Every structure is written in C-alpha cells, then in structure tokens.
C-alpha cells in the first residue's frame, strides 16, 4: 500500500516529535519540545511537505501551547509545542519560514509567549494604547476594563512615515500599516501593523454560545461573510458528530459560489478604478447588482446572508427562485465575457498589469500564498478541489491556473474563475438533492478539536475549533487568507525595488476587514506616503 502523506510526515517527524496520533482521518498531531521545534519544522520543509497555514495558541491552564499547522492538500500536520505559563517562550521559525512572522507576532501579543530571535516583535493587532502586560487570549485575563495607557512615541517616529494606505478605493479604505525600510531603491525590511479593525472577536467567541457565535463570526468580514459562517458551522458539526443533510450542503455550496461572484466582481471594479478605468468600475458594479439582488431574494439580505445554521441551512430554493438565478447567471456570464475582453485586450489596462508584480510559483508555494493569488502563479491551492467540503465532491469545480504570476494573471485568475462558478451553479440547480434542510445539533458540543478549511474568494480560510463539552466554545482560531497573502507579499518586497511594492500588495486582493493595513516608509530618514510610493513606482517603470 502506498505511503500516505500523513504516514510520510510521521516518518519525517520521528526523531524530533513524540506522541504522534491521528485525531481525525486527515490530521496528524505530533508533540514537540520547544528545543526540537526548529528541527521538526526543518524536516517538513526540507521534504517539501506542505506549507505553514496557521499557528494557533491555546491556554491549557499550567501551560501555553502553540500549534503549528502544516497543510498539504486535505492533510494537516500539527506540531504542538507547550511552554510554561510563567515563563512562556518558543523559538522563532522565521529562519525557515519567513512569512511566519505575522503568525508569531499574533501568538506573542495575544498569549504573552516570548518568541526568541523573532525578526519583528512590534505590535500587530492590539491597539497602541493597550498595556504591554495584558494578554487577551489567556483564560485568566479579564478584558472587560482594560485601561488605556499613554502611547509612547516610538524612538524612530521621526524616521517613519505613517501613510494610510487605503485599499484601492476610499470607501473601502481601512487603515492598517505596512512598514518598509529601504536603502535607496531597495527594500531591506518589511513589516505589517494591523489593528484598526481588531475588535477582539476570538476572545468574544469564548463567552458566547455556539449559536450566538455563528452570528458574530458571520461579521468578521462583510465581503466573505458566508464562508466564515460555513467554516465555523462545518467545524462545529464535525465536533458534534453531525452531518448536515445533502440538500443543505448543496445550498451552502450554491451560496458560496454566489458570494464568490459578488466578491470577484467587486474586486474587478475596484481594480479597474485603481487603474483609472472609471467606466469599467461603474459597469462591473452595476452588473454586480444582479447577483446582489439574487442573493437577497434567496437569503433575505444583500450582505451577511445568514444562510447557515448549525446543522444545515435555513433557506430553501423553489422553482421560481431557481429560474431567476439561472437567468441572472446567464446575464452575468455574458457580461463577464465582455469584461474578459476588456481586461485582456485594453492597452491602457494591460500596461498597468502585464509583467507587473511577478511572484514565482516557488515563492508562492514556500511562502504559503493561497487562493487566486497562488493560482495565478501556477500553484494549485484550492480547498474546493484539494479538500472538498459542503457539496464540492458531488459538484466539483475545476481550479483555474495561470502561470505568469503577474498582476494580469491575478486578474485573469479571478475573472476566469467566475465562469466556473456560473457553471457549477447551473449544475447545482439542475441536480439539487431533495431532503431536509437541517440536522439536529446538540446545544452542548462534546469536547474535541477540529480544523475546518474552506475556500473563501480570497483563498484558504482556516478555522481551528476546540470544544470543552459546554455550550460555549473553548477556543476558536481564525486565520484569514489575506493574512497569509499580505505576509507573503511583504516578504517578497524585501530585496526588491520600492517601485514594485504597490503592485505586489494590490494584487493579492486584500480583504480589508479580515485584515487592515497602512504603510510606514522609512527611506533613508525620509518620510514617504503611499501616494509617493505609487508615484515612485510609476516613474521607476517609465
């Protein structure tokens, strides 16, 4: 019998890990002492076993535990490293996985684990006025009245430029910070500072019931609300040993694809606007109203659909709605063909996208880039295909791959993907399984841990759920696709020209609510704004 991927991993981790076990058919958990962590990670990376998808922190009373999740297709290997609460410390894996920096910073500031040799220890998510010694995700931390501490001006403040880098459009502007240090034209260091949309959701899930959390988690992001709820529901169901009925799963997939359509059209419009193609922005958003209308007819809301309930869905499709949906899809497909011609053929647009911001397949793979951004570089990462969930096994999608890895490829990856969505929607509507919409879910979910991954419009959305047998979750960890992609994009800027930065960042379709960012630019003691950086980029490539 051929060795499975998990078997292979187990062998690789033989010497550095212990207590290997398979909590679920697709998961391998291995305990690792902090001192062996780097060796363990190295064995996986050297054998090119998967990519680091997320790092979860857990508070296990006397010890704090960090879980390093490596994914390869549907298989997940988790290295579990525990450290004493009193003097929590772990080595940094950035030497081996440069893009792990953001995960480690998050772990560090929320749990109070000191990461040794971390390249960047500055604040990632918590507000500037948050006390340094309050770690919100520790179980014994009371977050109800955390005082505001005076914000110390950073010593090199005068050398830094806080540039509110908006996303491409002001209405979607969300402040967040990128920090670049450049020596002349070359970027020598890049860092991320999030925090403007940091609401403290993960902590809040622990004090709400499983049902209440559904409504909370839907609102992590308004653009990809459904997939958040879906990942959560699937995970909770798996913990409870419940399987949603086939009709429900099919409807879940249907709504996921409708969400993908709205999201890609949104991004297309915003990208067009960024390129100054105002008319295309207007047309795509006008046409996007079609899918918004259909979604509203089906679920009752244009945004935050609330289609999921634990155990299934609460909406159904009748013949009339199905018919309307088919008509809508036909119309959108025709419009999308037109857009394909526009973005593929318009000279002015191409000049902003072709050969710009190239990311190689190797970089995309190693840095853990996910979603269309990865597929644009030829890396096949699509949870719908690799680890089918909902009804994707019966109604599969063919992932769209491009190979040039430039901004044009990223645009095309998304536009072409739309056709797949249209196709699968038709297939679903033609063959929707009959049956109930919900399976019964217990109010209390028995203790256990599970990992739930789904393909959001922007890429792999990763949920780690832990239950303790009560009505409230023990821990819910969310790793959004944009965090992976931003982190990788940033890493790629190091050693490249400043002029490359804007396009590299814009191309990953940042979901602003999932993460937020802003730009600090330290260029030989001079302050630069995002506009100046953009301008610089244009001049550089003149």
């Amino acid at each position, binding site marked *: 019998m051929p060795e499975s991927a998990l078997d292979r991993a187990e062998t690789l981790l033989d010497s550095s890990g212990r207590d290997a076990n398979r909590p679920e058919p697709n998961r391998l958990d291995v305990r690792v002492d902090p001192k062996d962590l780097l060796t363990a990670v190295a064995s996986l990376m050297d054998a090119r076993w998967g990519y680091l998808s997320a790092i979860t922190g857990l508070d296990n009373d006397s010890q704090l535990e960090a879980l390093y999740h490596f994914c390869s297709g549907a298989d997940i290997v988790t290295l579990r490293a525990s450290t004493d609460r009193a003097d929590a410390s772990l080595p940094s894996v950035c030497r081996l996985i440069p893009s792990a920096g953001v995960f480690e910073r998050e772990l560090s500031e929320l749990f109070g684990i000191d990461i040794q040799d971390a390249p960047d220890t500055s604040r990632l998510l918590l507000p500037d006025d948050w006390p340094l010694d309050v770690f919100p995700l520790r179980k014994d931390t009371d977050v109800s009245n955390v005082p505001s501490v005076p914000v110390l001006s950073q010593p090199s403040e005068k050398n830094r430029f806080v540039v*509110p880098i*908006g996303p491409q*459009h*002001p*209405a979607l*502007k969300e402040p967040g910070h990128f920090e670049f240090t450049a020596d002349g034209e070359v970027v020598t260091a890049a860092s991320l500072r999030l925090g403007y949309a940091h609401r403290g959701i993960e902590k809040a899930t622990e004090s709400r019931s499983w049902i209440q959390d559904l409504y909370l988690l839907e609102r992590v992001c308004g653009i990809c609300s459904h997939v958040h709820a879906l990942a959560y529901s699937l995970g909770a169901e798996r913990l409870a040993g419940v399987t949603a009925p086939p009709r429900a799963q099919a409807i879940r997939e249907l709504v996921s694809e409708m969400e993908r359509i709205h999201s890609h059209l949104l991004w297309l419009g915003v990208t*067009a606007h960024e*390129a*100054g*193609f*105002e*008319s*295309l922005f*207007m*047309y795509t958003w*006008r046409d996007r109203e079609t899918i918004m209308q259909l979604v509203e007819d089906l679920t009752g809301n244009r945004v935050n659909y609330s289609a999921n309930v634990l155990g299934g869905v609460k909406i159904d499709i009748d013949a009339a709605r199905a018919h309307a949906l088919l008509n809508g899809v036909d119309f959108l497909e025709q419009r999308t063909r037109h857009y394909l011609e526009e973005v593929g053929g*318009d000279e*002015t*647009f191409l*000049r*902003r996208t072709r050969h710009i911001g190239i990311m190689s397949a190797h970089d995309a793979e190693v840095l853990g880039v996910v979603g269309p951004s990865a597929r644009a570089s030829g890396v096949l990462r699509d949870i719908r295909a690799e680890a089918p969930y909902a009804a994707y096994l019966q109604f599969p999608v063919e992932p769209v791959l491009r190979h040039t890895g430039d901004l044009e490829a990223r645009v095309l990856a998304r536009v072409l993907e739309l056709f797949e969505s249209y196709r699968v929607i038709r297939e679903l509507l033609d063959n929707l399984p009959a049956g109930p919409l919900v399976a019964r879910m217990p109010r209390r979910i028995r203790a256990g841990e599970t990992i739930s991954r789904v393909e959001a419009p922007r890429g792999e959305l990763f949920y780690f759920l832990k239950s303790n047998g009560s009505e409230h979750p023990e821990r819910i960890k969310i790793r959004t696709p944009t965090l992976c992609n931003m982190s990788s994009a940033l890493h790629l800027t190091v050693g490249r020209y400043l002029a490359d930065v804007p396009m590299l960042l814009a191309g990953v379709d940042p979901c602003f609510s999932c993460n937020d960012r802003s730009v600090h630019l330290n260029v030989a003691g001079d*302050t630069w*704004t*995002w*506009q*100046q950086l*953009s*301008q610089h980029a*244009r*001049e550089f*490539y*003149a």
Partner: protein
Amino acid sequence: MTAQLVALLVVPGGAFVLVCGLVYEWLDRKLVARFQNRVGPRWFQPAADVVKLLAKEEIVPSGANALILNALPLVALASVLTAALYVPMAGLSTAWSFNGDLIVVLYLLSLVSVCVGLAGVTTRDRFAIEGAGRVFTQVFAYEAPWLAALLGPAVAASSWNIADVAAHANGQWLVVTQPIGFIVAIVGLIGKLELAPLDAPEAETELVAGSLTEYSGRGLAMFRLAKDATFVVGLALIAAFFLGGAADIVSWLLKTVALLVIIALVQALFARTRIDQTVALWWRIGVWLAVLQLLAIGILHQVGL
C-alpha cells in the same frame, strides 16, 4: 467706457465666462455620468457646489503662508478671466486684441496650472506637495505640444493675433488641413484640465485631493471656477482655430459643445495613463508631430499655398 466695462465684466468677459464655465462643467459631468450608465448631476449642481464652497469655513493649515494661500486662487481666476478677453466668445469678436496676444493668452492659461501647483507647495501637507509635483510635471508635458498645436493656425494666418487667426480660420475648417494639430490641441486641453485619462495629478483623488488637499472654502471655489473658465476658453480657442471660427453665437455654442462631447467621450473610454507614460508619450510623439505639422504649414505658407 461703459461698453468696455460691460465687455470686461459681463459679456463676453467675466460673468459670461463664469456662467458658461458652470454650464459646461455640468454638461461634462452629465455626459460622463450617462456614458457610465448613471443619471448624473442636476443642472444647477456646479453652481451649488461653488456657492457652498464660498460659504465654508476656510481653514489655514499651520505652517502655511496665509497671504500666498489666499492670493493664489485669485491670481488663477484673474489670469483665466483676463485670457478670456482676448479669445472670441459667444460669437462676438474678441473684446480686446493686440499683436502677440496669442502668446500672452497661452501664458495666462498655463499660469492657472502653475498656481494650482504652487498652492500644493505652499501648504505643508505631504499629499499636497506630492500632488504639486505631478501638476508641474503635467504642465511640463503639455505646454509644448499645446503651444505647437495652436501655433499651426497662427502660422497659416501669419499672425500672432488671435482675432486675426480666428478671422483667417473663419469658414476654413483647419481641422481638415491640420488634423494632427487638432488632436494634439484636444489632448493638450484634457491634460491641462487634468481630466481623465490624464488625471494623474489627481489620480488618488479619494485618498488625497492632490495639490489642493489643504484648501477648504473660498480658495477651492475659486480654483474650481478657474478650471471651469479654462475649459470654456480652451474650447473657444480650439473652435475658433480649427473648426472654422465662430461668427455667431449659435455656431459658437454648437462647436464648443461638440468639442465638449468629444472630451467627455474620451474621459469615459480610457483608463488613466500613468503620468510618466503621458509625459513620455507626448514628448516623444506629440511634440514631434506637432512640430512636423508646423514645419509643413510653414513651408507650404512660404511657397504660397
């Protein structure tokens, strides 16, 4: 004396130019909106915008020189209104005229852009300074081709006097004999007004407002009026030179509006070019084409054609 005052302040000067500017701004915005499949603004919108701005609190950012900050919009507006007096408007002959006024008018029109740029430099806002840099870059890009394009008809008429050139062009549709000059002039005007696709200086408008980021009330109102007036004067010049002059108000209106429609179409059709691309494009191609055309005209003229 009264006649002169009327000409200066009302028609074809001051009031007429400003009102016409507001109407044309509306027409442009409305057309662009319709091309984008939207309804667009109401007819009095530009007027409402200006009055509202005049009533807003003017905040002088710290570190900025209040005197210069307040003077620049006035200078810009005054320049373009003065320039308007030498250009045939509304089917009337020019209010004033002297030999060489073509050069002066072109200078005054570029002064408007320079004031906008200086406005950005005066404030201490990073975005504004950045925007100012781009304004100047764009001015640098467009002045030469624009000049060369308008010189074509001047050479054909052997005169530096706008009234003469307009008279010479009357009935002769120079767009036919000098098509390149015509196109260059239109694109030059688009660049001058920072309309799409040549709006790189205002490119990140939502993120920042370019050079005028720090202006709030009256100053902003006056800059907007100056821009609208430049639009009218620019259209009038191109109509007079290339579209066979404008002897009466009806043909003047028709011709300037036709040009406006073309410009609105261009705004809607193209993606924004990068500023470096526009500069490169026009200095590499536009200027040479315009100069070649000029030479051709000059030679033909000497030869007696």
